[in-house]
């Protein structure tokens, strides 16, 4: 992306710089005042006393609450992403199939799971597992993973499709003209290139999965948010607990987003693929990491 600021306005002179620093100063002051007010209000309720924070320096809180919660969040996210990749590959290829009924069936499945909110699916599958006795004492985990897999798998399926669609037509024509079948062309020529181009988008889908795993809170899955709640009722320090896990979430997701952007830049430089990174189709836009996918000199 170009620094749009360079073209949209002139480099500020002394007068403009003065106005800018005044505007900036006022805004900074206003933001600082608002922040200070909120902190002061919490402090008045005693949420910022040392005693409310010192539990986070003890091994107990980390050993029995934060680390198990973090493991719960990561376990759900990693298992879901792995399963979603398989689901997405199968149905993405299904949508590109030469056999029309396969194409339609995959299309209906993908569109359906993309339209239904993750939380609704979680509640549904959690209760299905509870009633049927599948996954005894793991119902919450299974519910979270099923819902995350179906939704994100459908998003990945769309990414696969748009990744293949974005390849130049010549790739497929070349494959067919040397005598490969349609399926062979897809598997050995188009998919490898599309997958490389998709890598950053899939990475940033991981951010969505990590965030959405917090929905497990609603079905009592033992993840970070649930644990923060437990810390809050155990030590009476809900706000510090929330702030600590918010920092953990932000740090993890920020690292993932940055990594995704690095990989994307690297791919673009090396040019191992004929395809562009796929355009944001639906909710993968949530991640923002592929918002700058268009190459070329743009604003």
């Amino acid at each position, binding site marked *: *992306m*170009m620094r*749009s*600021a360079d*073209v*949209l*306005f*002139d480099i*500020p002179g002394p007068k*403009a710089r003065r106005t*800018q620093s005044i*505007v*900036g100063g006022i*805004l*900074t002051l206003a933001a600082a005042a608002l922040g200070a007010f909120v902190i002061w209000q*919490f402090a008045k*309720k005693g949420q910022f006393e040392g005693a409310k924070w010192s539990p986070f320096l003890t091994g107990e809180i980390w050993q029995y609450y934060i680390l198990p919660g973090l493991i719960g969040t990561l376990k759900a996210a990693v298992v879901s992403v792995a399963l979603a990749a398989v689901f997405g590959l199968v149905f993405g290829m299904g949508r590109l199939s030469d056999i029309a009924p396969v194409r339609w069936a995959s299309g209906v499945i993908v569109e*359906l799971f993309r*339209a*239904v*909110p*993750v*939380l*609704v699916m979680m*509640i*549904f599958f959690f*209760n*299905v597992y509870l*009633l049927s006795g599948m996954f005894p004492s793991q119902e919450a985990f299974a519910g979270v993973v099923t819902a995350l897999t179906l939704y994100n798998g459908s998003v990945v399926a769309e990414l696969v499709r748009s990744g293949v669609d974005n390849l130049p037509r010549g790739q497929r024509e070349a494959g067919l003209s040397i005598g490969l079948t349609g399926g062979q062309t897809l598997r050995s020529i188009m998919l490898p290139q599309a997958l490389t181009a998709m890598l950053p988008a899939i990475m940033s889908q991981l951010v969505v999965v990590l*965030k959405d*795993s*917090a*929905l497990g*809170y*609603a079905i009592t899955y033992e993840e970070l*948010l649930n644990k923060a709640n437990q810390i*809050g009722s155990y030590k009476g320090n*809900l*706000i510090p607990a*929330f702030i600590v*896990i*918010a920092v953990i*979430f*932000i740090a993890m*997701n*920020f690292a993932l*987003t940055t990594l995704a952007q690095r990989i994307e830049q690297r791919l673009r430089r090396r040019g191992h693929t004929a395809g562009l990174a796929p355009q*944001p*189709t*639906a*909710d993968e*836009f*949530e991640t*923002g990491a592929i*918002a*700058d996918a268009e190459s*070329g*000199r*743009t*604003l």
Partner: protein
Amino acid sequence: MGDLLARYDILGAFLMTIKISLAAGLLALVLGTLLAVFRLSPVPVLRAFGSTYVNLVRNTPLTLLVTFAQFGLLSLLNWHLANQSSPTSVADDNFRWGVLALGGYTAAFVCEALRSGVNTIPVGQAEAARSIGLTFTQTLREVVLPQAFRASIAPLGSTFIAMIKNSTVLSVIGVAEIAFLQSRIIDENADQLYTIMAIVALGFVILTLPLGMGATALSKRLAVKR
């Protein structure tokens, strides 16, 4: 199924989902546009403010924001947004804080959607505008934003579809929308599990499908030919 529809206010719950979506959508649009202007502005502090907000909010789970709003701001600090003497003040407070959280969360994505629209404009457009002597405001108003808006329709549509689905998260703070009702119905009639799932799924398809198709059609029709 008719039995369920008669005993529970399923349409009312969907209406609540729509109400949340409209209110939060409006808030997100206003706040998101403001953030996008911040991120494009010549003032460094505004740019820093915009990008900090987007990066913090986008990387926090919505469930966390919503529960924080209720537990922290409403219950602990007693910041009420509803008239305390009204009989529905508890439900109103939850609804308003939920809308604020959802709108504030979606605003970060609206900002990025608008910015991605600006990112599709070739630099030459702005250069041409500047070279015929247009100022910053004129360049934005006459050349950049009209094109950016057209290019943002598709990502904005996706953002709002995601927001409608995210409105279900408000059920964790007890707003009586469709996911909340789904939970209740399952608790009370376990045998209706599949029926209610089918109804809710159908409802969301009806809510989101036309929006998605409309956004795609509109963005194709308004696409800037290059």
